[in-house]
């Protein structure tokens, strides 16, 4: 119980009149990697974005380490405990990779520049982009950019990492290098929430899998069970479709 990290309670989210999340109840513990999958428009990104309140939900609550996001008055400081990685990397194009990585540590976490840079080099080493430190995002390959974005998120020394389809915009040969970094991260015990269609990754790396459809969690199982005996027809159909695609 002590390692409960995120607690989602009766969460409802609307975009205008459209209900994107429908009474979500779930929780995530420290040290686990959970994959979220489901068809397009099922609310995967929305759920992820509620966990750091990028999306302002209307009903229910999300507790991060027991702290209510709804009542949180200093959301910026809470967000700096959670790293996020996006489908399209979203590196800041006008800054070098090094500056991309040190920006939030310096201004959100008030680290000194030398400290932030020293840590940035450690992280770049870890994701294998040390040579790119002084280059600008547009000078890197997609895979390098995404690894830089992962380093940027890790620079927050986060307690949780959110990944929203981190490999969907990448060519196949680059997907592997990004997934490898993510796998190592999971092995080291980083808590991770990963929206992805990479079922190979899910199978090999994740501890649990959540399947969503129409704003609801249809099924949540540990990884092995999910693949061996999914109990809902919808999951079965989804798996058939997505595994055929691969």
């Amino acid at each position: 119980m002590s390692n409960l990290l995120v607690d989602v309670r009766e969460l409802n989210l609307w975009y205008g009149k459209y209900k994107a999340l429908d009474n979500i109840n779930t929780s995530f513990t420290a040290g686990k990697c959970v994959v979220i999958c489901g068809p397009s428009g099922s609310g995967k990104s929305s759920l992820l974005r509620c966990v750091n309140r990028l999306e302002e939900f209307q009903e229910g609550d999300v507790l991060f380490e027991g702290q209510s996001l709804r009542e949180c008055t200093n959301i910026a400081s809470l967000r700096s405990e959670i790293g996020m990685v996006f489908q399209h990397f979203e590196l800041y194009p006008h800054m070098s990779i090094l500056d991309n990585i040190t920006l939030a540590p310096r201004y959100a976490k008030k680290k000194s520049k030398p400290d932030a840079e020293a840590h940035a080099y450690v992280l770049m080493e870890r994701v294998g982009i040390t040579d790119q430190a002084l280059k600008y995002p547009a000078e890197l390959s997609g895979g390098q950019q995404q690894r830089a974005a992962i380093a940027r998120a890790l620079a927050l020394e986060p307690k949780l990492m959110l990944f929203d389809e981190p490999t969907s915009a990448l060519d196949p040969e680059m997907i592997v290098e990004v997934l490898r970094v993510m796998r190592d991260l999971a092995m080291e015990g980083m808590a991770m929430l990963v929206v992805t269609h990479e079922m190979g990754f899910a199978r090999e790396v994740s501890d649990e899998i959540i399947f969503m459809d129409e704003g609801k969690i249809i099924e949540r199982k540990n990884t092995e069970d999910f693949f061996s005996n999914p109990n809902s027809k919808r999951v079965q159909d989804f798996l058939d479709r997505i595994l055929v695609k691969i």
Partner: protein
Amino acid sequence: MALNYDFEWGLLLENPHKEWIIEGLAHTVGLSLTAWVIALIIGILIGTIRMTQSPLLRFIGTAYVEFFRNIPLLVQLFIWFFVFPLMLPNDLMFAWNRLPHVPLITALLALSLFTAARVAEHIRAGISSIPKGQFDAARSSGLTQVQMYRHVIIPYAFRVMIPTITSEFLTVFKNSALTLTIGVAEITGAAKAIEAWSFHGIEAYTVASVTYMTTTAIVVLFMSWLEHRLRIPGLIARK
């Protein structure tokens, strides 16, 4: 008549003409540059608050832009020059009138605030053109609104907007000629004075035109140098 015109270019180097020209040059260039810089600062501020989530700030921003953009500059000059001092409390009004160079200060005020409204509109368009994911990235990393705009959004928007900002200088620079109407001795005013004094209008207005053209050329060169320096490596140069 033009055929009988006696060109006397040397006249321009004689006093009082020379003094007028030097003073006019200094006023035109100084006034425009200062107004431009002030307009950039205020414009970035107003343009940015129009993009925030606060309804009050957005209202203030919109009100500012609509007010200053929709009244002709000439009218604004007259308002600042004739009406504004009257609206001050008595002791402030006397203090205002005792200021040295009231026309110049008024001109600076009017030009800056007018141009700031235009800059604010450009900034708003610039910020709207920034991918939403940039905001997500900045917010999710724990930056506050102010930090996000200061380090991510505005520097990004600024680079996109350098050509627009340059053309705003050309506008404020040419608009500065209007300030002769409230008695600022800028270069067009100087040309007018020389023409009245010596009947050598062609030479006088040539000097004014050359002033506008060379200053413009210098600023355009400087800005393209700046654009090149701030160019984001790896991105294909925008036309």
